[in-house]
C-alpha cells in the first residue's frame, strides 16, 4: 500500500538499509539476553493499536443510541453536543467535505473534521481508545469505544445509524478523504544560492504588530 518516496533517503536505504535488515538483524540467538520474554497477557494489556486493515480491532459492539449517550456524557463538554466543536476551541469532529479543504474553494480556514479529513475510520477507534476522554484515557470499554466511533461516523453520514458498530462494520467504512493524501515530495523548493543582486526591490509585506504575543505572566499558564 505504502511506497517509499524516491529520495536520497530511500535510495541510500535501498543500497545499505535493506541489507542490514536481512542479514545483521536476522539472528535467532540473543547476544546479551537482557530482559524477559513478555507473556501474551502482558503484551495484550498494552497492545491497543489499530491499523486501517482492521488488525488490532477487538471484539465488541455498540449502537448509535449508546454512542449518543456516551458522547453526551464523556465528550460533548469539549467537542459540543453535536460534535461540531461547540463553538469553542476543541476540534470539531463532524461536518465538511474534502472539497472544502481546497484554499480556492474555501479561502478562510480549512474545515478539518473526521468526516472531511481523516483518511481511515480505524484511526477513530484507535484514538478514542488510547487518548480519550481527555483526562481519563483508556477508561472506556471496547463496546463503548465502538458505540462512540459508530455515532461519530453516522453523524458524518459514513455509517448507517440503524446498524451496530463493530470490527466488521468498521472495516467496511471508506472515508471520503482516503485519496486526499500523498507522500512527502520534499525537497520541493529550490532556492538558487544567489549572492549578488538577487532582487531589484524588496517590500515589507507584514509586520508583527498585532499585539498577540504574550508578555509577563500571560506567557505562563
Amino acid at each position, binding site marked *: 500500500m*505504502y511506497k*517509499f518516496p524516491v529520495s536520497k533517503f530511500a535510495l541510500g536505504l535501498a543500497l545499505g538499509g535493506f541489507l*542490514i*535488515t536481512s542479514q545483521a*538483524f*536476522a*539472528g535467532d540467538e*540473543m*547476544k546479551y539476553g*537482557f530482559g*524477559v520474554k*513478555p507473556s501474551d497477557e502482558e503484551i495484550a494489556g498494552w*497492545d491497543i*493499536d*489499530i*491499523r*486501517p*486493515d482492521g488488525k488490532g480491532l477487538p471484539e465488541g459492539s455498540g449502537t448509535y443510541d449508546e454512542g449518543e449517550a456516551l458522547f453526551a456524557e464523556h465528550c460533548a463538554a*469539549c467537542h459540543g453536543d453535536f460534535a461540531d466543536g461547540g463553538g*469553542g476551541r476543541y476540534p470539531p469532529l463532524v461536518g465538511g467535505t474534502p*472539497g472544502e*479543504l*481546497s*484554499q480556492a474553494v474555501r479561502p478562510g480556514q480549512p474545515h478539518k473534521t473526521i468526516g472531511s479529513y*481523516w*483518511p*481511515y475510520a480505524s*484511526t477513530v477507534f*484507535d*484514538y478514542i481508545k488510547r*487518548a480519550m476522554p*481527555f483526562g481519563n484515557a*483508556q477508561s472506556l470499554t471496547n463496546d463503548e469505544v465502538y458505540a462512540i466511533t459508530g455515532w461519530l461516523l453516522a453523524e458524518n453520514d459514513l455509517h448507517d445509524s440503524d446498524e451496530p458498530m463493530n470490527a466488521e462494520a468498521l472495516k467496511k467504512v471508506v472515508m471520503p478523504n482516503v485519496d486526499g*493524501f500523498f*507522500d*512527502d515530495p*520534499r*525537497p*520541493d523548493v529550490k*532556492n538558487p544560492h544567489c*549572492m*549578488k*543582486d*538577487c*532582487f*531589484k*526591490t*524588496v517590500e515589507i*509585506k*507584514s*509586520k*508583527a504588530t*498585532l499585539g*498577540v*504575543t*504574550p508578555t*509577563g505572566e500571560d*506567557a*505562563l*499558564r
Partner: protein
Amino acid sequence: MGKQNMDKSKTNSRVIMAQAERESAQLEPTRRAFLRGSAAGIGAVAAMGATGGAAMAAGNPENLPPNVPEWSKMLGDSVTAEPYGIPSQYEKNVHRRTVPWLTPTGESSISFTPIQDLHGIITPNGLHFERHHGGFPHIPKEDFRLIVHGMVKNERMFTLQDLMRFPQVSRIHFVECPANSGAEWRGAQMDKLQFTHGMVSCCEWTGVKVSTLMEELGVKPGAKWVLAEGADAAGMSRSIPIEKLGDDCILAYAQNGEMLRPEQGYPLRLIVPGFEGNMNVKWIRRLEFGDQPWHHREETSKYTDTMYNGKSRRFTWSMDTKSVITSPCPEYPMLGKGYHQIRGLAWTGAGKIKGVDISVDGGKNWMPARLEGPVFNKALTRFVFDWEWNGQEVLLQSRAYDETGYVQPTIDQLREIRGTWSIYHNNSIHTWLVQKSGEVLNVQVSGK
C-alpha cells in the same frame, strides 16, 4: 525528598517565576519607553553603547570601583547551599514561555525555549522546549517497562536497568517541533524570537541505539514499519520506517549528562535525529514491528500538510534546513551604531550545515557568515558575522545551506508551492527589521 517538600519547592519555583515575570514586565516598558522616547533616537542609543549599555548595566555605584562590594568581604554560601545547582538569581527571566491562546489546555500545549538568551549549541535541560499532548507524567523508574514485540524473532520486555546494560552511545542532536514558526505561515505574527523560533532545542542524548536492539532481537523478514508508543495519557503513537530506526535512532535515558527530565520523557524516550519532534516519542513503553504503517491520529489528522488544492502531504518526517539570527532580536535590540556581532543558529535534518549567509538588505545581496564552534550532524550550529551598523533601517536575514546543497528558501517560494494552509515545516528565511531606534521587529518581505 518528601511529597510535602516537593510541593513546597514547586510552589517556590512558581513564586520565583511569577516574581521574575513581574520584574520583567516592569523592566520591558521602561526599556521600550527609553528607546522610543529618545528624541535624538539613534544618538541616545549610541550614548547607551558608549556608557556600556542599558540602565541595567549602570549598576549600584557602591559596588563599583573604587568601592569594594559586600561580596568581596563576606563569606558566600557553603558548598551544599544548593545541592542541585540553579541559575543565578539575576537570570530569573530566562525561562520557557507559552502562548496560552494557541491551545485550549496547558496539558496539550507547547512551551518555547528562550533561544534569545542562550549561547553555544547545547540547550540546558530545564529550558528544552516542551510539547505534550496529555500532560507530562512522573513515572517511577522501577515501574517502567519497554515491550518490543510484533515481527521480531525474540519478543522482549526490558526494565530501565536492562536497557542501561546495553552498549551505550551519546550523540548531540536538535529536536524541533514541525510547528516551529507555524504561526508565521500567513504573515508576521509573533513579536519575539522566543515565540517565532523557540520550538527547537539541542542536547547530548545518551542511550542505546535501536539498531543494537534490532540485532539482539532479530527482525523478521517483511517487517518495514515500527509503531513507537508513549506511556503518557495521550498514548502518543507514530509509525516510523524501520530503516530510519536501524540507522541512527536512539532509545535515550540521559540528556546532557543526567537522566532525562520528566517533561522530556523520563525515564526513556526515542530520539529520531533530524525528523519531526513529535516522532521522538517520550515516556516510550512499546515498539511494535509490523509490515504496514498504522496511520494514527498524529500522522493523519495532525502532522500532515494541506496544500493549496486541498491535497495533503503525509509522512513529512524530515526537518528542513533553517536558520535564525538570535542577536540582534526583538528581545535584545541594537545598543548603538558601530560594531555588532550578528549571531545565530542554523540546523538541518539533512545532515550538517555547510554554511550561512547574511543579508542586510532583505535578500538582495548576501555575505558569508562564519560557522562558530562545532558543526555536528543534525545539531544546532552557531554562526557569527562581524558587522558595522550605520544606524540606518536594515532588513536583516540569515540563509543556511546544508551539505546536500539545499538552500533555505524564502517564504514566497514556500507559499508558491504550498499555499498558506500549512501549519508545519515553515523553514523560511526570517527577517528582522532593525529600526533606527535600535529596536528589532519581526517582518515578512517579498523580493522581486
